[in-house]
Structures are given as structure tokens and as C-alpha cells.
């Protein structure tokens, strides 16, 4: 049972992130919501790689224990890099929007006509 706790954390993170994206009006909170969903998916990928009593998948000279799978670590790294790029892009767009409209409220921006 104790080995299932990371999966509950994954579901909780994704649900909180989806709630923030759908129901919040401040643009910065939407960006934080997407960042939470990304963290949840990354945690899911790393949790899949664990085997019981395993150590990090690096060769060193002493002993031999079971190693955890190295492929999901590479997938998670790629996903983190993509997340950095998407967050930087979204924040730059928010700077432009604030300079143009003077407000950060998504509903007010949608009602404006140019």
C-alpha cells in the first residue's frame, strides 16, 4: 500500500491543475495550473521506473544491485525541458497582454473589441 502513495499524489496534482486552468480567471493562475499538470505527469513517469530495492542506474565499481529503469528518466528530462520552453513562452505573451490591455483578467480581455 505504501508503494501506491506516489500514484495518489499524481492524480491529486493533475486534478488540482485542471481545476486551476478551467475555473480561474487570472492569467498567471492559469500558467501555474499548467505547471502543476506537468509536475504531475513527470512524477508519474519517474514513479514507473522504480523497482523494489533498486539503486540509481549508473555503473560504479562496487557490488551489483538491481538498477531502476533508465528510459523513463530520459523521458522525464525531455518533458521538463519542453515545460520550461512552454512556460517561458506563456509568460512572454502575458507581458504583451498586460502592456496592451492593462489588466490580467481573462474574461475582461475576451470582452474587449481590439
Amino acid at each position: 500500500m505504501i508503494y501506491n502513495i506516489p500514484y495518489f499524489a499524481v492524480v491529486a496534482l493533475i486534478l488540482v491543475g485542471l481545476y486551476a486552468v478551467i475555473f480561474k480567471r487570472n492569467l498567471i493562475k492559469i500558467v501555474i495550473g499548467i505547471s502543476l499538470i506537468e509536475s504531475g505527469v513527470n512524477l508519474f513517469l519517474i514513479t514507473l521506473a522504480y523497482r523494489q530495492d533498486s539503486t540509481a542506474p549508473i555503473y560504479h565499481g562496487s557490488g551489483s544491485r538491481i538498477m531502476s529503469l533508465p528510459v523513463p528518466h530520459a523521458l522525464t528530462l525531455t518533458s521538463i525541458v519542453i515545460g520550461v520552453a512552454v512556460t517561458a513562452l506563456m509568460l512572454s505573451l502575458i507581458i504583451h497582454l498586460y502592456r496592451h490591455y492593462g489588466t490580467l483578467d481573462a474574461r475582461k480581455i475576451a470582452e474587449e473589441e481590439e
Partner: protein
Amino acid sequence: MSGMSKIVKTISNIIFPFITIFGLYVIAHGHLTPGGGFQGGAIVASGCAMILVAYGSLWTMDKIKEKQLSILESLGAIGFIGVAFLGLIFGLVFFKNFLVNQDTIPIFNEIGKGLSNINTAGVLPLMNFAVGLKVIVGLFVIVLVMAYATRPNGGEIE
């Protein structure tokens, strides 16, 4: 935004070389220990961001022209693709590791665990350097332009 006090500037001057050396170490040993291009580049970029916060974005934007940084970033990207194309020309498959298991340049031929040398994995350290350069410059330019664009009066870029 304006810089911070004299104490902060002095301490960040002292710490910045250590952060850079550590970041370059993580980039260079990416094929042996955890690390590699992106991780080491992020460490050096956060060191540069520390300098940016300590000295203020106005001062930094005067000293460093953003256009020269863009040239460095393109050089890093061309380095990566160029090494991949060299794999096509010398090894007959795109992205092939053509410096391993060959006899013309035998310096790259040591493979195996326990030897923590840079020349043990062929083409991989070269690609790590290219990606590391691109990540350092790319992340630093993002932080610099965002800090310059949100300064208190105005905020027009270029």
C-alpha cells in the same frame, strides 16, 4: 530595474566563478555521471541570472548586446546539427556515433565503466557541449529580456 547594494554585488562576484565551474563540470561529464547538456546549462544560466539580479537589468543591458548573444545561440544549434550530419557523411547513417570503434583516430576508443575520462564515448561529449552552450545563452537571454521589458517606466525592447 536597479541593482542591489554593494554587499550583494561583492558576494555574487565571488560566487559566480564557482557556479560556472560546477556547471561546466556537469556538462563535460554528462556521459558518465548524471547531467549533460541541459542540466549543466541550467546551472550556469542560474548563475548568470544571479548576476543579473545583483547588478540590475539596465546596467546588464548596456554591457551585453542581445544581438551578439543570438549569434552564440545559433552557433550552438549549428554545432549539434553539424555533428549529426558528419555522422551521415562518415558513418553512412544519420546521427551515427562515428568516433567509437574505429582505427583512424584511436584516441576515442576507450569504452567501459570505471574510466571517468571525457574521450570515452565518442561523439556524445561534443553534442553535450553544443547543447550546453545553446541552453546557457538561451535561458540567459529569456531572463534578461523579461527583466528589461518589465522595468518601471516604459519597457520597449530593441
